[in-house]
Every structure is written in C-alpha cells, then in structure tokens.
C-alpha cells in the first residue's frame, strides 16, 4: 500500500486524479490538499510516498512547495501536474530533478504519472 498526496487548488482536478488513481490502486491512501500550506501540514502526519502537485495555486506555487518538501521526503517521488505547458516550466521542474506532466487530467496523463511513480529508482 502506498500513500499519495494530491495538491491542487481545483477540487474537480483532485477528484478526477483521485478517481483514476483508485481505479488502478484500490488500496492506495489518498491525501488531498488544496494549497501548499495545507500540504505542508498534512504531509508530516501521512508521509506520502508520492506527490502529485499542481503549479499555479494561490500562495506558494507548486515548484516552491516541492523545494520545501524534497529535503524532508528524500525517498518520495514528486510529479508536477500543470496546465502551464511552457518549456520554461518544464526546465524548472528538470532543475529540481522532478518530472512534469501536462494537464488536462485524463486517463493517459495520470497513467503516465503513475508509471513514473512505479519506475525503480
């Protein structure tokens, strides 16, 4: 069983990601956060194995959040799931050593992300 944290200010996106993840992995525990502050609070309690993080959110953005989380969760895998398809965004994600995936949330985009989570380190 794995823990996955979904951080996205859009409730609809969180709901769609959650449904697709649970279709494939019924026993995974899903932790939802609507912004960076909430994520930082919840992750100490739940220690997620995987993080799916949106970029554009009120308050700290997804990349800033990942910078804060990575040193604390060295074994976890991070994915930036974003509508911002600009090359510069992907380059920033690369610099942080994380994988980015383009929205919209579809079976294909989430399966790609899950494939990345399941890759051996």
């Amino acid at each position, binding site marked *: 069983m794995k823990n996955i944290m979904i951080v996205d200010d*859009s409730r609809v996106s969180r709901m769609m990601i959650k449904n697709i993840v649970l279709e494939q992995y019924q026993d995974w525990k899903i932790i939802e956060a609507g912004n960076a502050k909430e994520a930082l609070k919840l992750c100490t309690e739940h220690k997620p194995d995987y993080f799916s993080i949106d970029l554009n959110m009120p308050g700290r953005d997804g990349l800033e959040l990942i910078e804060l989380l990575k040193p604390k969760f060295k074994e976890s895998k991070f994915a930036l799931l*974003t*509508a*911002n*398809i600009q090359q*510069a965004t992907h380059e920033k994600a690369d610099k942080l050593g994380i994988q980015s995936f383009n929205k*919209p949330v*579809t079976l294909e985009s989430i399966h790609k992300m899950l494939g990345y989570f399941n890759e051996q380190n």
Partner: protein
Amino acid sequence: MSKTNLLTELEQDYLVELFNIGIGKAADSLSQIVNQEIILSVPTVEYITIDDLNKKMAEHQDICSVSQSVQGTFSANSMLLFPEESSLEIVKKMLGEGYSNETIAELHQEGFTEIGNIVLNACIGSLGQSFQEEFKVGLPSYQIGSISKVLQTQEQENILFIRINLMLSESKVHGYLVFLLESLSFLQFKNMLNKMINGLLS
C-alpha cells in the same frame, strides 16, 4: 490607439498564424477534456472600443468567463467565454458519467475555472514558444454575468481584440477565446511581431 499604430497586413497575417497554432493546442486540451472534436474559426483581429465590444458580444445573456492575466514583454488579458448553459454542458462532459445534476451544478464554477486554466495556458504556452519568451500567467478568475460585467477593462479607448470561436462538434455548444491588449502593450506587442517577421524574412 492611433491609426498609424495599427497592425500592417503582414503583421496581422503573422499574428493570426501564431494564434492559429496557439488555439490548436488549446483545442487539443479541450478536446481531451470533453472527448470530442473542437471546431475552430480562424482568429479575427479587431481594434474596437470597449462599448462596441460589449455590443458585439451582447447576443448572449449570461456568460461564464475564466480570465487569466499574461505578463511578459507585453501584458494581456486572456479569457475563455461560454454561455452559461454551454459551460454546464462542458463541465458535465469533463466529469463523465455518473454525476447528478445537483453535483454538476455544485462543481460548475470550480470545473469551469479549471477548464479555463487548462485551455488558456495551452494557448499562452504555445504563444510563449513562438515568441521565445516565458509569460507569467495569473491565477484563473471566474465570473458569470452580462458580457459588460465579464469584459471589464481599464482601457476606455481602443483595444486589440482577438477572438476565436470554438464549437464542440457533438454537443454543438459555442464559446470564445479572447485576448485583450491595451494600448501600451499593443506597441510592445507590435514590436515583437516585427522582430519575428524580420527574423523570418532575413
């Protein structure tokens, strides 16, 4: 905006081409969300006063809009507009089967905001690639109401208005993608277009 500052035929032609590519990306994203083909119009570019813009768009009663600011060498406001009924239909398509009308109505605002966020970012991202520039994109802002309410702008004089009609091929619902550029940004925008055109022609 004085007449001398308007776009030349070549600039306008190139601008339409850039938006064609951008809207292609946006339509691809929207198509993935609603699982059907999106039929696009050729972008129309107009210089228009805010009053005329309101009149032009006044055919619809209540409009749902998602807008996002675009900041770079120039600033613009990007908007996705759908009549209220159509926006509900799109959210319904996005969520898929198995949701009651009450749930769809409850999720309407958040769902449509996210759709706007994805579609506008796809188009802006493509424009950023064409301009070789990173644009800062603001958080999506949702509004519903008359066209004059959702199309508010600081500028009282002419604005550059780029409109693309979107139609969902099966659901037959229409919407618009709109970019508004005010005078100051228009000049910077024109300079950027010229640099690119000169680069292509040299």
